[in-house]
């Protein structure tokens, strides 16, 4: 990662301006110009250094529902189950983890009522139980990783 990329990560994890020319404003802060900053962001997204650029919505405050799910899947059946889970558009993230519960995914649905039928469908399709672990309380976090 070069100096400009590092500066972008450290400056732009929040606070993108609501302004006519927001990239020009941020570029000035970072000592570069609008065209260079835009080109760099495109490169970083294409390379996967950034996964997204834009507003980050809080699903629950937007009226939707969010839950974390875990499954215990035999290794021999893991790829099949992961594919079945991933096929649901409501599954936003899915990670393999080194644990007895080895498949962990996040569901974002339009409402709480949509989650139970979705989990039932995943259990029926895969043949394995799903642990439903919705957040009950969030403890304050400042989501910033230093590059």
């Amino acid at each position: 990662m070069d100096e400009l990329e590092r500066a972008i990560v450290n400056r732009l994890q929040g606070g993108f301006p609501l302004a006519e020319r927001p990239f020009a404003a941020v570029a000035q802060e970072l000592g570069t110009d609008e065209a260079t900053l835009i080109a760099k962001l495109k490169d970083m997204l294409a390379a996967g250094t950034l996964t997204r650029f834009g507003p980050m919505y809080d699903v629950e405050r937007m009226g939707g529902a969010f839950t974390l799910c875990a499954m215990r899947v035999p290794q021999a059946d893991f790829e099949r189950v992961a594919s079945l889970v991933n096929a649901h558009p409501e599954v936003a993230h899915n990670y393999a983890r080194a644990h007895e519960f080895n498949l962990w995914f996040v569901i974002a649905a339009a409402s709480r009522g949509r989650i139970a039928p979705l989990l039932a469908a995943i259990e029926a399709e895969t043949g394995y139980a799903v642990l439903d672990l919705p957040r009950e309380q969030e403890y304050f976090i400042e989501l910033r990783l230093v590059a």
Partner: protein
Amino acid sequence: MNATDAAIVRATQAGLPLVPEPWRAVAESAGITQAQLFARLSAMLADGRIRRIGAVPNHYRLGYTANGMSVWDVADDAVDALGARVGALAFVTHCYRRPRRLPEWRYNLFAMVHGKSRAETDAHVEQIRALLAPALRAHDVLYSTRILKKTGLRLA
């Protein structure tokens, strides 16, 4: 969510257009003026429906390759006070209380911990363990071994 906010979400959930006037493009696709867009976005930032506006880095590409989901079985009467202190630690990016699912799942506090090496992450976990010690019954750390899917959230 009203129709205007839903149109804004639809126009931005895949990300902002990388053009000199991105908000003008969003306003046009949502069918409102830029001034209306700024008013709605400011309101959503103020009430927390938008957490922040900016870039989401890939942890792995920043060198944070040891990403552990630490899980803790903390006494119910202490979990909120201690959870707030865990969430305030700089290396914790998400911290939640979740229900136990006995007998399979005993842990009620989750904290995502990021480090540039397994040793660094283990040291962070040890710091959390010391903080929770008075009310702690058990804990574990689940390291991710593979990202199977990661997409933006789709809301509208």
